[in-house]
């Protein structure tokens, strides 16, 4: 049962198409993350769901209601902005209660709901303060509180953590996770940070240039990226991509042993093979598929990241800590079981 549905939604500004043919079904009670680099259309899509941007073509449904032409206030949504957008001249309590006040809810009930939400977010002592007396994390919580008090059907969050410093971001991430699981409201969360996406989402929607690239659970996307772009976007350190060719029934790359080619592949086909750095193994000379000329060795503590040249192509290896010097030739193994095969021309996944 989906709470938000987008059907063939397009958004154009003049001649520029910013969102192209996006169709999505977002599950009830889940946390969906729109992930992508700046300019990919994720924020615009969010704002269209909120009603802050008009829809050029297509429909948006919330619950089962077509909201495409409705005002934001009639859509039963609440939003948390990147810059918090707290009313500077109102206290925390007034900020949180404002939405209810405008809708004519009675004073005592507003007070009650504000109190409950404040307790949930640890804001009970701050209710009489003004936004300029709050820290970044506190302001973010007030923005969340404002949304919770409204008890809307869908919560929209536009990069809520990007204005916080790294440590605070991790902490707030946890809090948002727990909060969402607790209140069980549907949440749409926009970010460019894949860590946030991986840790928070029930479902990730990866966008690029206005189009949806892939929709799925975090691990699903991680294990089976549907194209080269998604493969390179998710996962840190970034996935290795090697050029290979199908020759005589084998996949060949320069300077490496051949691998048995997948039966579906055509002779002579150019393939991009993706393999994550942690799946590449440092091997013994006998079992090796080839050698890595190490250019950089980054010691990370328990692991190390080797970056260098594998038969002329760039390769990154994440291996258990060892002592490796620049310029060394390290034998490596590439287990085919961990290959992600992509067509070199289209980038589409083949296996």
């Amino acid at each position, binding site marked *: 049962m989906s709470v938000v549905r987008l059907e063939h939604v397009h958004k*154009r500004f*003049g001649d520029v198409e910013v969102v192209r043919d996006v169709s999505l079904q977002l599950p009830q009670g889940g946390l969906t993350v729109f992930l992508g680099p700046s300019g990919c259309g994720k924020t615009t899509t969010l704002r269209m769901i909120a009603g802050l941007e*008009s*829809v*050029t073509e297509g429909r948006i449904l919330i619950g089962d209601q077509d909201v495409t*032409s409705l005002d934001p206030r009639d859509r039963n949504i609440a939003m948390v902005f990147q810059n918090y957008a707290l009313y500077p001249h109102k206290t925390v309590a007034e900020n949180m209660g404002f939405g209810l006040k405008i809708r004519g809810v009675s004073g005592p009930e507003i007070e009650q709901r504000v109190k409950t939400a404040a307790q949930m977010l640890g804001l009970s002592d701050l209710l009489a303060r003004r936004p300029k007396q709050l820290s970044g994390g506190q302001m973010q919580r007030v923005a969340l509180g404002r949304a919770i008090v409204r008890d809307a059907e869908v919560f929209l969050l536009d990069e809520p953590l990007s204005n916080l410093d790294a440590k605070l971001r991790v902490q707030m991430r946890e809090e948002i996770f727990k909060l969402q699981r607790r209140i069980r409201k549907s949440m749409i969360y926009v970010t460019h940070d894949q860590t946030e996406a991986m840790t928070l989402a029930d479902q990730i929607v990866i966008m690029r240039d206005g189009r949806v690239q892939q929709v799925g659970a975090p691990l699903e996307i991680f294990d089976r990226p549907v194209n080269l772009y998604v493969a390179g976007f998710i996962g840190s350190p970034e996935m290795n991509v090697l050029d290979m060719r199908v020759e005589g029934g084998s996949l060949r790359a320069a300077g490496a042993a051949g691998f048995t080619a997948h039966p579906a592949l055509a002779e002579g086909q150019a393939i991009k093979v993706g393999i994550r750095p942690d799946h590449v193994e440092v091997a013994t000379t006998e079992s090796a598929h080839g050698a890595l000329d190490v250019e950089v060795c980054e010691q990370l503590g328990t692991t190390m990241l080797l970056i260098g040249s594998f038969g002329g192509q760039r390769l990154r290896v994440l291996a258990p800590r060892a002592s490796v010097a620049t310029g060394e030739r390290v034998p490596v193994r590439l287990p085919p079981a961990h290959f992600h095969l992509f067509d070199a021309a289209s980038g589409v996944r083949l296996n």
Partner: protein
Amino acid sequence: MTALSSTAPARGAWSDRRDASLFLGLLPALVVLAALTAAPGIYLVLTSLTPLNLANPGSAWDFSQPLGNYVSMFEDPRFLNSVAVQVKLSLSSVVLQLFSGLAVALLLHANTRVRTIARSALLIPMVLPPIVVGITWLALFTVDISPLHRFMEGIGLPIPPLLTNPSTALWAIVFAGTWQHFPFAMLMSLAALQMVPDSPIEAARIDGASRSQIFWHVRLPFIAPTLVVAGLFILIDSVKAFPLIFIMTDGGPGEVTEVTNFYVYRQAFTFSLWGYGSAIATLMLAGVFVVSYAIYRITSPKDDHGQ
């Protein structure tokens, strides 16, 4: 402010409803402005095409010689004189006010207590009612009572009465006007100087530039656009010069200080030649429009639109 809206008219979009609602708030102002500026403006132009005057009120609709007034203008030596006086006044106003305003701004640019207070105090000439400025300088240029004259006489450099002398009257007015209006250029220069970023100045200092070199090559290019806009404002304002002339010289001696604005006043309200006065006023309005357009183009921010 022009709309960069979606090409397809989105059905019943919130933003369109908002624009309609906002327009309702704009409407009263538009109505008032139309009634008080557009209507009189049109009436002005229409009147300029007639020979309307107090002695002949029926000529309000006499369009037989529409360009009659405009032709007479250019054959009217007194009008042409007023234009010459106006040009002298305007050019000297722009130059003197910009120069003195910038000079004072450079002095006041530092952040000491004294200079901060001075920045407020030196605004006073600009906010004074022009008529008060007029009577003050009238007194200061009246030899019998003026401490300035007494001082100059005392140090052996007596100044003759300036306002009654045809060759100095206009410059006396320019001087008083510069005193009155220099704070405007000062404020604009101060604001512009504040906005000059620190990095180019630091870099120039490290490169060994002297203070005047830093001014000419770093600060000035940055503040030049503001100075241009300020100059245009001063130009337009100089066209409106009236109270000082009215009180200090009444256009004289002779017609030496009769600027175009003052001449229109004479024609329209002393001689009640409304048609003729309207024609000159129309020309002035056209000139102001051109310069305003230039200012508007320079100072309008680029349109920005969320995506």
